[in-house]
C-alpha cells in the first residue's frame, strides 16, 4: 500500500471515529492504529456547551432579533401626515399647535368685534 493510500484510509477511519462508527474502522496497520488512538483521545476531550448557556444565548439572540426587526419596521414606515397624531413624540407638539391656533382665532375674533363694535 502506498503512503497516499494509507493516508486516505487513515482519514476515512478518523471520519468513522468522529461519526461514532468505530466498529466500521478497517484495515489498520501499527502506524494507523496508534494515530487512531491519538484521534480517540482528541475526540474524548470535546466539551459540549452547557444546556443553560445554550438556552440563555438563544433567548438573548431571539430578543435582539425581535428588537432589530422592530427598529427596521419603524425605519421603513412611510411618512403619513394623518398618522402624526398617533406618534407619541408628536402628540405634545400637535396639542400645542391646536392651543396656539385656538388662541389666534379668539384674538382675531376679538379684534374684529372691537373694530366693528
Amino acid at each position, binding site marked *: 500500500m502506498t503512503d497516499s493510500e494509507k493516508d486516505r484510509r487513515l482519514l476515512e477511519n478518523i471520519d468513522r471515529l468522529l461519526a461514532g462508527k468505530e466498529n466500521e474502522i478497517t484495515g489498520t496497520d501499527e502506524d494507523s492504529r496508534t494515530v487512531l488512538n491519538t*484521534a480517540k*483521545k482528541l475526540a474524548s*476531550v*470535546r*466539551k459540549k*456547551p452547557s444546556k443553560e448557556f445554550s438556552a440563555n444565548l438563544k433567548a*438573548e*439572540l431571539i430578543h435582539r432579533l425581535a428588537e432589530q426587526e422592530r427598529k427596521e419596521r419603524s425605519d421603513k414606515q412611510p411618512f403619513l401626515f394623518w398618522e402624526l397624531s398617533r406618534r407619541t413624540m408628536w402628540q405634545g407638539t400637535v396639542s400645542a399647535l391646536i392651543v396656539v391656533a385656538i388662541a389666534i382665532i379668539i384674538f382675531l375674533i376679538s379684534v374684529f368685534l372691537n373694530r366693528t363694535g
Partner: protein
Amino acid sequence: MAMKTTGNFTESGSSTAEVFGRLYERHLQGVFQYIYYRVGNRVTAEDLTSDVFSKALAAFSRYNPEKAAFLTWIFSIARNTIIDYYRRRGKEMQLLKEETESRTLVSPQSPEDEASRTEETQKLYQCLAKLRPNEQELISLKFGGEMTNREIAGITGLSESNVGTILCRTMRKLRDYLEQ
C-alpha cells in the same frame, strides 16, 4: 405557500427568528467545540461563542447562501473572532505555546475545567499547543467542528487533498509528542 426572506436567505413559511433559531441549534455545538479546542477553557469559549452568534445575527440579512453554506460562513466568523481575541489580548500563538509549556494550554478558569482535566488530558492539551497555529486550526475544525475535509478546505482556502495531507502529518506529530 408563504415565503419569508431573511436578506438573501429564504425558507418557506418561517420567520427570521425561526430560521436563525434552527441554524443556531444546528451549529452551536460545533462552533463551541471548535472554539474550546482553540482557547482551552469553558468561560472564554462561551464568551467567544456568544460573540460569534451575535456577529452572525447582526450580519444575517447580508448572508447569501448562494455564495457559501451557513457552516462555512459561521466558521469563518468564528475563525476571525479567535484571531481578534488573540490579537486583542496580545497573545499570539507563540505566547500561548510558551504558557502551555510551563503549565497547560490555557489556565483553566472554571473549577469544572480544573477538575475534569486528568493528567492525560493535560498532556494532550500541552502537545496540542506545541503544534503550529495552522495545524491547531485544522485539528480544531476536524475534531471540534466535526467537519469533512472538503468543508475544512472551504473555510481555510486550502485544497481538500492538502487538508488531508496536513491532517495526517499533524496527527502523527501529535502521536509522537504524546509518546515522548
